[in-house]
């Protein structure tokens, strides 16, 4: 399945993008006894959804019919009803096409069994229709899964070196440039909100990148976690391979970092919840000095979050940026608490993709990147670090995440 990278270390290898097929193709298949293996090629596996999910979808379409009846009676819908209606109708529609496509495939299969003379034609037809069917089934699955509340938001990517000293700082910087390259390739607007450079050498102590594209949070949220690197550092003299880590935090961005929104946001806090400190030199102040120091420190007492910001010359802008960060962190925290509560309620320890430790390894000597959550491996470090192959990994993790969520949905 996997294509071995044959490139020498340091030389960019031009490998075709490898897309690991989501494992649930097979998993769900094993739960469904009524589908038959048609060929050895994985892409021809008919990817039916389990009955529980279909039932759930059917509930939606029933509700859709009810709502439609109410609508024809001339009832007025409030906003929530409208939202519900839109959701139900889209699920019902997808379910309809899904079932049509499924029955077509079944007919074709039957045809093969009944009339061997048509086997070749039918097989061809199936080969054409199966991918389309799989598309439908995954879109139906996507519609059944709860949408992340911040899915349409732009995001902030925070990077911090972990263990490994300067090498970890360099790796954090590599990751920062990887995400910026990624945003650049997708033509997403992005900028560095703050960055603290290691003063005694290379690398960074921390960096916050803002990616202003709506939906960027949904795309990148699974990047959060500890990234591990194995390579011979530039700082190493004896040629030994080191292992270092860097932490990536992805936060939804709820407002832009302009002064006005920050001002409005500031007012939502009670005065005793928050403290804003400005770095002030001692002395007379006023006309006696002309300071250039505009650092702002923000303390949020209920959550214990402290944010320092000093990159801008304008104290106002520093404050606004600090508030943007605080807002993102609080939202993330709230969301995590909600999710944790949900998991606890299910009394099931899910190996969540969201926050598992050490999510990915970058092995430079082998030119290999492995995502530990879904087991996906790609042999093209330069391509990933340049941003254009990162999508492959993200796709794989997302599929894995959907699979996990679908499992939870079945349990419910």
């Amino acid at each position, binding site marked *: 399945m996997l294509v071995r990278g044959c490139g020498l270390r340091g030389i960019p290898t031009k490998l075709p993008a490898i897309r690991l097929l989501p494992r649930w193709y097979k998993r769900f298949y094993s739960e469904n006894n009524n589908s038959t293996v048609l060929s050895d090629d994985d892409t021809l596996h008919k990817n039916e959804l389990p009955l529980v999910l279909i039932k759930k979808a059917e509930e939606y379409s029933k509700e859709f019919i009810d709502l439609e009846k109410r609508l024809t009676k001339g009832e007025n819908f409030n906003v929530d009803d409208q939202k519900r209606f839109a959701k139900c109708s889209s699920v019902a529609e997808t379910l309809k096409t899904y079932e049509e496509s499924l029955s077509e495939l079944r007919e074709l299969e039957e045809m093969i069994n009944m009339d061997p003379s048509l086997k070749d034609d039918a097989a061809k037809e199936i080969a054409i229709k199966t991918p389309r069917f799989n598309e439908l089934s995954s879109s139906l699955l996507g519609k059944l899964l709860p949408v992340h509340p911040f899915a349409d938001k732009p995001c902030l990517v925070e990077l911090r070196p972990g263990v490994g000293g300067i090498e970890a700082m360099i790796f954090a910087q590599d990751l920062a440039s990887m995400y910026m390259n990624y945003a650049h390739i997708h033509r997403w607007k992005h900028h560095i909100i703050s960055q603290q450079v290691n003063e005694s050498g290379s690398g960074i102590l921390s960096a916050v990148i803002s990616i202003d594209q709506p939906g960027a949070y949904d795309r990148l949220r699974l990047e959060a976690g500890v990234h591990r690197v194995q390579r011979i550092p530039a700082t190493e003299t004896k040629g030994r391979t080191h292992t270092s880590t860097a932490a990536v935090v992805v936060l939804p961005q709820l407002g832009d970092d302009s002064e006005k929104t920050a001002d409005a946001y500031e007012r939502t806090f009670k005065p005793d919840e928050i403290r804003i400190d400005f770095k002030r030199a001692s002395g007379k102040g006023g006309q006696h000095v002309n300071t250039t120091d505009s650092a702002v420190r923000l303390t949020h007492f209920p959550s214990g979050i402290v944010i320092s910001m000093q990159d801008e*010359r304008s104290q106002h802008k520093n404050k606004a940026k600090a508030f943007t960060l605080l807002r993102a962190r609080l939202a993330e925290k709230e969301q995590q608490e909600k999710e944790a509560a949900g998991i606890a309620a299910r009394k099931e320890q899910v190996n969540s993709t969201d926050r598992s430790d050490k999510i990915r390894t970058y092995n430079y000597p082998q030119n290999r990147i492995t995502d530990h959550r879904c087991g996906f491996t790609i042999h093209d470090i330069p391509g990933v670090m340049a941003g254009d192959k990162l999508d492959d990994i993200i796709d794989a993790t997302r599929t894995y995440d959907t699979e996990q969520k679908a499992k939870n949905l079945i349990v419910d």
Partner: protein
Amino acid sequence: MLMAENRTIPHARQELRWLIQKFGSNNSATLFRACLERNRHVPLQYILGSQPFGMLDIKCKEGVLIPRWETEEWCLNLTDSIKRSKLINSGASNWKIMDLCTGSGCIPLTMINETKNLFSNQTRLYVDALDYSPIAIDLSKLNFKTNFDNKVALSQNFNVSFNIQKCNILNEPEIIQYLGKYKEKRKINILTCNPPYIPHHEFIKDVRSSVRMYEPKLALIGNLEFYKNLNDLWVGKNLIDSFVYEIGTLEQALYVQNNLPSSWISGITLDSNNKARCIFGYNKEANIDYSKIFNHFKQTAKVYASIANSDVTK
């Protein structure tokens, strides 16, 4: 090289970043010259040519005082208090704000920028800025242009007018003559001023070398002249309803307080560095209830409560 003005390495790095942002890293000759100037204590704001002030970007030139964060703080406080008081919407009368010793124009321009949306068809905001220095007059004109495009655009979109005048504020007849030119002899609603307030004896002792060597003495050295002028002329001749003056020492504020008529209510506010920074006052017999503005102004800034509290004076 930047360490001469910066006490710590992070600060120096930060400054270097700003310098690179302005001059670019590839143009090393310009960058080097800028660093060299900084090494000679030239204020960073003069090298970069500007200083952020509230929402505005105020241009800075040698010969004009650089806006300070303390001024920014109380100025935004004041505009916020005006906005919250809702006085402007309720009374259908025009407003007049005057700023003395305007320098770069940072105070009146921020006043305009923050309050311009409050003025509708019925009410008009007149903002006047006075200064004695011709360089300051030119710079404040430039700042007005860069921040508000031009006079026409501002007066078309908002009911606001702005006027800059060269005037010797300490010369009473000149002021009275200037005010006499106004057809509507409207009283000034709020008078703001950041006068030179560093006493002569403090100038060598307490002032940073970068300020001492490069910023104009005209805008720095002074003591009670302007506060006396406030009491005698503006308050004494009943030209204003309220005022906010920046102060350097508590004595200056006490001097003003002790010489105010009994119908005036006044207070002293601290900046976020806990230094006495402003004196404000309003005439409680005025037509408009200014307590609505200044009670909020007092709340936002820490108020200098007890005169006996001696560590504030230090």
